[in-house]
């Protein structure tokens, strides 16, 4: 498949009181693995169950309970790694991250610090036509999610729901290659798109199935390039980590706020403290959660309950062979194969379902026309009804029929809109609608000539005027269209009117 070439976007500078500054952002995205069972137990992962109903003895860390790896989750992590063009580590291992919290029943989270299952990869983040940021992925590791602590149900007590405890997460760690709040949002969007194509995470940010820790720092122009050359982080500013963001809008707001805050500190002669911060959506500000001094010592060590995870290349190869076509390849194919614009191809590949819909509608037809009809008419109509594409009353085959009817000059674009509306509301096939409703365009030049002749004969004064001023020919075209109930081919009418008037 043809690879499209991209240019890196220009880094936007932020004007401080004294200098221009640049943003440097790295992200740790926690993506919940699409899996029926948890990472180390057979308890269900179904969202919205009664509190503490999806909890096994292992999840509740009862005495003597032991974790057993869920092979499907490993498969999903490998699939994700392959989708991000990343190295798969045939040997990985699980470590314990020790800390006390009531929603972490064992007192430790099983994660992969020292030997993650996926190594370096990359994500191409498009920022406009022909412009994209290549964000390097450092690693992906598997780990357990925590439960949920609820502090606002009772004035004196806290409650814990362990339904989520032990659910498999993939932590996707990027290099600090993201250079602005817009790029951060675009990165998450692209990552989410790839995960959804792969079927390894549903990307539901509202339910917390995709959330991000955002590391933000600022530096003077030129410093980032020095970091890139040397790999030495000391060229960059001190970073703050904004925890647990699950809204694209909040991520951008938080980054913008954090950039201004850090710039003000540094320009005021201060230093940024490395710390963990939280974002308050009500004020639009970030706030200290944990300073460096208060930072946990997680005392990571290899989990002695689990043997090192060894997978075989042949197994990885099988997964690789079963990967679906991914967004970048699909978009390139839509552009080169169907002649779509960059924009149309992007819109139609945003969701794999939309891409599939388009391909069915466009198969063997004019792809550009099919794309126009889906993006402009269908999407517009669905949006008006707040309906999803999956529930569209118009099938891809029906869009295909409309395209065919237009291309064969059976109907005009204008009539096609009426046909579409009838199809949308009734579900009837466009071909049948055109036939039954007599909407077929008149392309029979004899019939059109007769109509033109009649109008010319009936309006001698207008004929004289038109001969003086050819622009008035339009009036005759309008009259003919009216007389034919809009079914006459407009181009044919135009030609005949011009000829008859001798223009």
């Amino acid at each position, binding site marked *: 498949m043809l690879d499209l070439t991209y240019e890196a976007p220009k880094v936007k500078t932020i004007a401080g009181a004294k200098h221009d500054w640049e943003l440097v952002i790295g992200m740790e995205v926690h993506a919940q693995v699409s899996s029926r069972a948890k990472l180390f137990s057979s308890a269900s992962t179904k969202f919205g169950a009664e509190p503490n109903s999806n909890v096994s003895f292992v999840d509740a860390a009862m005495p003597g309970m032991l974790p057993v790896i869920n092979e499907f989750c490993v498969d999903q992590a490998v699939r994700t790694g392959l989708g991000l063009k990343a190295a798969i580590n045939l040997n990985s291992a699980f470590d314990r991250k020790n800390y006390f919290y009531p929603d972490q*029943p064992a007192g430790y989270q099983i994660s992969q610090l020292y030997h993650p299952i996926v190594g370096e990869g990359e994500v191409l983040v498009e920022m406009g036509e022909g412009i994209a940021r290549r964000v390097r992925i450092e690693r992906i590791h598997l780990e357990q999610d925590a439960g949920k602590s609820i502090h606002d149900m009772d004035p004196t007590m806290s409650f814990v729901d362990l339904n989520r405890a032990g659910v498999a997460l993939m932590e996707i760690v990027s290099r600090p290659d993201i250079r602005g709040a817009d790029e951060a949002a675009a990165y998450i969007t692209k990552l989410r798109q790839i995960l959804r194509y792969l079927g390894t995470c549903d990307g539901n940010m509202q339910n917390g199935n995709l959330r991000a820790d955002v590391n933000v720092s600022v530096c003077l122009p030129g410093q980032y390039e020095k970091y890139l050359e040397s790999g030495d982080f000391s060229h960059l500013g001190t970073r703050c980590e904004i925890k647990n963001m699950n809204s694209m809008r909040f991520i951008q707001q938080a980054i913008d706020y954090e950039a201004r805050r850090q710039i003000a500190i540094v320009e005021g002669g201060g230093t940024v403290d490395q710390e963990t911060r939280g974002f308050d959506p009500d004020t639009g500000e970030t706030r200290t959660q944990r300073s460096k001094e208060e930072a946990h010592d997680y005392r990571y*060590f290899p989990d002695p*309950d689990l043997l090192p995870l060894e997978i075989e290349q042949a197994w990885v190869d099988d997964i690789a062979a079963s990967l679906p076509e991914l967004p970048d390849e699909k978009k390139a194919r839509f552009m080169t194969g169907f002649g779509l614009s960059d924009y149309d191809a992007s819109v139609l590949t945003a969701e794999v379902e939309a891409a599939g819909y388009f391909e069915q509608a466009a198969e063997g037809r004019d792809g550009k026309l099919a794309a126009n009809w889906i993006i402009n008419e269908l999407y517009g109509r669905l949006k008006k009804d707040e309906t999803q594409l999956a529930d569209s009353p118009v099938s891809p085959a029906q869009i295909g029929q409309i395209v065919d009817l237009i291309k064969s000059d059976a109907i005009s674009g204008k009539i096609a809109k009426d046909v579409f509306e009838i199809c949308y509301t009734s579900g009837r096939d466009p071909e049948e609608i055109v036939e039954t409703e007599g909407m077929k365009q008149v392309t029979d030049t004899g019939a059109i000539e007769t109509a033109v002749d009649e109008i010319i004969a009936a309006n001698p004064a207008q004929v004289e005027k038109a001969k003086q001023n050819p622009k008035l020919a339009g009036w005759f075209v309008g009259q003919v269209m009216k007389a034919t109930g809009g079914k006459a081919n407009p181009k044919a009418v135009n030609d005949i009117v011009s000829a008859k008037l001798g223009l």
Partner: protein
Amino acid sequence: MADLNTLGLAEARDLLRKGETTSVELTEACLKAIDAADVLNAFVHKTPEIAMERARAADARLQAGDAPAMCGLPIGMKDLFCTEGVPSQAASRILDGFRPEYESTVSANLRDAGAVMLGKLNMDEFAMGSSNETSAYGNAINPWRRDGDDTALTPGGSSGGSAAAVAADLCLAATGTDTGGSIRQPAALTGTVGIKPTYGRCSRWGIIAFASSLDQAGPMTKSVRDAAIMLGAMCSHDPKDSTSADLAVPDFESLLSGDIRGKTIGIPREYRVEGMPAEIEKLWNDGTEMLKAAGAKVVDISLPHTKYALPAYYVIAPAEASSNLARYDGVRYGHRAKLAQGDGITEMYEKTRAEGFGDEVQRRVMVGTYVLSAGFYDAYYNRARKVRTLIKRDFEQAFAAGVDAILTPATPSAAFGLGEMTEADPVQMYLLDVFTVTVNLAGLPGITVPTGRDAQGLPLGLQLIGRPWEEADLLNTALALESAAGFVAKPARWW
């Protein structure tokens, strides 16, 4: 017929199968003995109803001719095993009131093999200790006494309750667990047999964890044959334990012949530790001669990294324990401290754990936390892991050179007086594990067999260490040693 509770597993099984006694009779005899031995504090929770119910069920199976390996045989269960509906507290206050809704794989295997559980046995808290003195229930007492001296002696630890119960004939056998010697040391101090199988032979599922990479369950019995019978019933491949080995379990008993002609026994020179009592030296030499007389070839071997084993063990075991014991936080089960007005989650953790854990457990949690902390991890934990690899390699090289089993002392001394070590530096107590921890670090099977008595009449044992997964061969060598030693002494009943 002797009192039924004094029988071993093999004898009792044979009588049951011949119809000369019943499980109910055996069980009643044991329950009576247990009730008469409260002073030994071996059983911390008696389960007579469960015992009688299982005994009756076993008798029905025996009648029907459907008698699995342990059918009708009354045993004790170390408190570290989770037993469904029965208090399982690891002898800790922090698990006050905890009754699991599940049965550990090993105890379920024994139950399925027809064994009759008499109750839960005393132990050091979370299996941390070598004298049974860290138990929240107070220590068990060794039924053995020095000649003409009624000082209460330790039964050893951590499986001290199991050892005392077997030695005092309160049950026919008992389960133990061994992280650094917790089966083998108490067996040696009570004149009983204890085997720790290869790491991975017995499932750890449902056994309250101390140090996951070292913990193994095993039987504590009155003879090597009994150990073979019971070990077979305890082992299985368990998909619920990722470290459980997917290997067939041999019929250990049928492989016992006592014939060790042509076998090579290694005597590791590094185990001849400084200050070793002459009695232990003699015991070891005598054992060596016995094996030689039985037709084995005896060779001197070197296990050069032995001296680093104890420090490495006392880094790795506390490190894992500090993490394994983090779940005892007062949130979901067990003890929770009463909180003062304004106390938050941190106070709840601190007070609960301060009240719930005894001194030794707290000490090890702190040591473990320290060795894993940032800046110390490489110096302690990682270095200890490297030492562990070297210790394992020492054994591999010895076995590769043709050694079939290694003979060592089991303990540096006979049972000591309860309270004698409490004033001492905790390290003095740790030194008691010097001969046993290497086996756990290397994941090997090890067995102790009583082979003699000290000048004051107390039992002493020797340890045999075998190749991984070759428990059958190890048991056979142990049988030869047991036959040659002819240790038949029993503690004089004073309780």
